[in-house]
Each structure stands twice: as structure tokens, then as C-alpha cells.
């Protein structure tokens, strides 16, 4: 058997030979009994090697690998915080800063007005002391949502997008997220969310709590 044929036969046997070489080997095999016998030997070797590791379940080690992957994944709460944090560093934040300053001045003015009103009417001792809270101008019912522990950030974004929702608060100590949807769409959105597999619980609430 010539050297070239000897070199090409293993690749012929495993099916990776280029077409022109394959044709050449085919012609040699037709005329060379030794080469056919050697090819048969390779094919037997191939099948015995394949049998030597047969019966391996395809999910061997899969559960442990997934466990490892999930353990490394940042907790959902941290990712959402990072996401919100990123928003706070972007161009939107630059625009929001003067607005926040104006709002702060407004809050001081309101607080001043309330204090002045109490002092003027002498009612400060009769009224319970309540913490004043900045109310968003368009405050309306929100959805309080708890996501499943294995919910992915991408899935959450998609789901919120599907209900035209935006995250306005959270996560709270209990993993509560507050979502604003278009006015009047709260019930439909809540219904849509509660049937999604990544949502553990959803409830319509009057607005953001003072602490959460």
C-alpha cells in the first residue's frame, strides 16, 4: 500500500476526507485488497471505541452544573438595584437633578406652609404629628409585585414591557417591587402578571408606601 493511501485511510474511515481525495481513495480501494482489509480494521476500531463509552446518560452532571451556574448568578435584588443605579448615572439622571432640586424647594415650601398654618391656628398640640411625604404629582394605584426567585432580569423587563409598566420602587425587604402602568390599566395588568410563571404575587396598592 502506498504512503498516501495509508495516510488518507483513517480520514476516509471517519468521513472527513475532501471529495477529491475520497474519490482517489475509492479508486485505490477498488483495486487493492490490502487497503480494503485495513479500512475494515479501522472501521472495527471505530465501532469498538464508540462502544467503550456507550450508555452515558446525556444529563450526566447536568443538575450539578446548573446548580453551580445558579449559585454564581447575582441575586435578582442586586441586579435590579444595579439596573436602577445605572439609570441614576445616565443622562436621564443629569436631567433629573434640577427637577429634583425644584421639587425639594417645593417640599420645603409645603412644609413651611403646614407649620405656619398650625402655628396660626394654635392647633399644633391637637394634631398628631405625621411625617410629611413627597407625593408624586401623578400618584395613582401601583402594582406591588413579587417575582419568582429564579426570574431572570431579561424576562422581567419583557414582562414589564408587555404591560407598559415601569419600575418605580423596590425591591423592599420582602422583595416587593412597585410597578406603574397606564392609568386605568391596573386590573388588566395585574391579571396579566399574576398568570406569568415568573410572578409569585401581584397586588394593586394605592401608591408607594413610606417605607418598604
Amino acid at each position, binding site marked *: 500500500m502506498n504512503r498516501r493511501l495509508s*495516510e488518507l485511510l483513517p*480520514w476516509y474511515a471517519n*468521513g*472527513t476526507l475532501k471529495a477529491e481525495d475520497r474519490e482517489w481513495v475509492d479508486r485505490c480501494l477498488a483495486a487493492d485488497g490490502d487497503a480494503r482489509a485495513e479500512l*475494515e480494521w479501522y472501521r472495527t476500531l471505530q465501532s469498538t471505541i464508540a462502544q467503550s463509552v456507550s450508555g452515558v446518560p446525556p444529563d450526566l452532571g447536568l443538575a450539578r452544573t446548573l446548580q453551580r451556574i445558579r449559585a454564581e448568578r447575582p441575586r435578582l435584588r442586586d441586579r435590579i438595584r444595579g439596573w436602577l443605579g445605572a439609570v441614576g448615572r445616565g443622562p436621564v439622571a443629569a436631567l433629573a437633578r434640577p427637577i429634583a432640586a425644584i421639587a425639594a424647594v417645593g417640599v420645603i415650601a409645603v412644609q413651611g406652609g403646614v407649620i405656619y398654618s398650625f402655628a396660626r391656628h394654635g392647633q399644633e398640640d391637637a394634631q398628631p404629628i405625621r411625617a410629611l411625604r413627597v407625593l408624586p404629582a401623578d400618584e395613582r394605584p401601583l402594582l406591588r409585585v413579587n417575582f419568582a426567585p429564579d426570574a431572570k432580569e431579561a424576562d422581567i423587563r419583557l414582562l414589564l414591557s408587555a404591560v407598559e409598566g415601569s419600575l418605580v420602587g423596590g425591591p423592599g425587604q420582602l422583595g416587593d417591587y412597585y410597578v406603574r402602568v397606564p392609568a386605568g390599566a391596573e386590573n388588566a395588568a395585574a391579571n396579566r402578571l399574576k398568570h406569568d410563571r415568573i410572578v409569585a404575587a401581584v397586588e394593586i396598592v394605592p401608591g408607594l408606601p413610606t417605607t418598604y
Partner: protein
Amino acid sequence: MDDAKARELLGRIARQDETAFEAIYKAFSARVFAYALNMLREPHRAEEVLMDTMHEVWRGAARFRGDSLFSTWLIGIARNKALLVYRDRRADELHDDLDDIAETEVDELAPEGFAELAAKQRREGVQACMRKLSQEHRECLHLVFYQGCSLADVAQVQGVPENTVKTRLYHARHRIRNCLRLMIEREGADSGAN
């Protein structure tokens, strides 16, 4: 699973899609395990290499440049993982690679000998003779006859020129053939003595 499908799944894995990861894991786990077992010869270590390799696929899916088959890239990762384990082993665990039986020279087989060998060799015999080969030779045979790699793929995985692969393959098949030949002769002698 063909290469196009594997690439599509890999793109999804890069976006952290666990379903795609499970699909690719199940499609390629047997091949990775077989490769690692061939290198290390210990099922529990081979399983560790399989898991490490697939974990690396999850973490590094975006690094696949697409200039080779996915399976070649995957075996390349498995090779690095297996070599780490291999090098960590105690030196005395490696000595049987140099077992003299594979090095023993016998006369080249007569033409009809190939057919005889093909008829007589058994799975255990092939496995035993594979174990006697050096790590490079065993890996080369495995890549060609189990993984179905092309010459270029074997060269890429082993990190050597194609001519080196040809030389390794020549010596590997020569030695395994000698080993099987000796085994058959001994069996014949044993049965003759009985």
C-alpha cells in the same frame, strides 16, 4: 446536533438562556465525557471535566469566534480541563502510559492479518491496548475515530502542525495493532496450552 444548531444555541447561551444550555449539554455531554474518560481513564474525574467544560461554555459562550466547528472548540476546552487534572495526578499514576507492551515491535502484519485482527479483536482488547498508548497517541486515535475530527481539527485541538498529527496517528495505529497482535498470540498460546 449539527454545527449551525449548536451555534444558534450558543448565541442564546450568551444571553443566559438555560434552556439552550440544557439542550447543548445533552447533545454534547457524551462526547465530552468520552474524551475526558479517554484522557483520564477515571469516570469520576471525567465527569468533573465534563461539568467544568460545560460550565466554561456557559461562562464563555460569547468568546466563541466561530472560526472552527463548535465541537472542536468544545473539545479544546475539555482538553484544557483534562490536562489540568492530568498534570495534578501523582507521577506514579502515569507510568503505565509507558508500558512496554505498546512499544514492543513485532513483524508487520501480513495483508490477511488485518482481516484476522478485525475479526478477533474485542472491545476489551481495544480498550486495554488504548490504555497502553501515550496520552498524545490515545488522544489522537480518540479524536479521529470517536469524535470524527478532521485532520485540521485534530491539529487545532492538539495544538500541533498537521504533519505531527499524521506522525502521531501512524505511530498510534502501529502500536495498537502490535498490542492487539500480541494479545491474540498470547490468547492462542493460552488456549493451546489448555
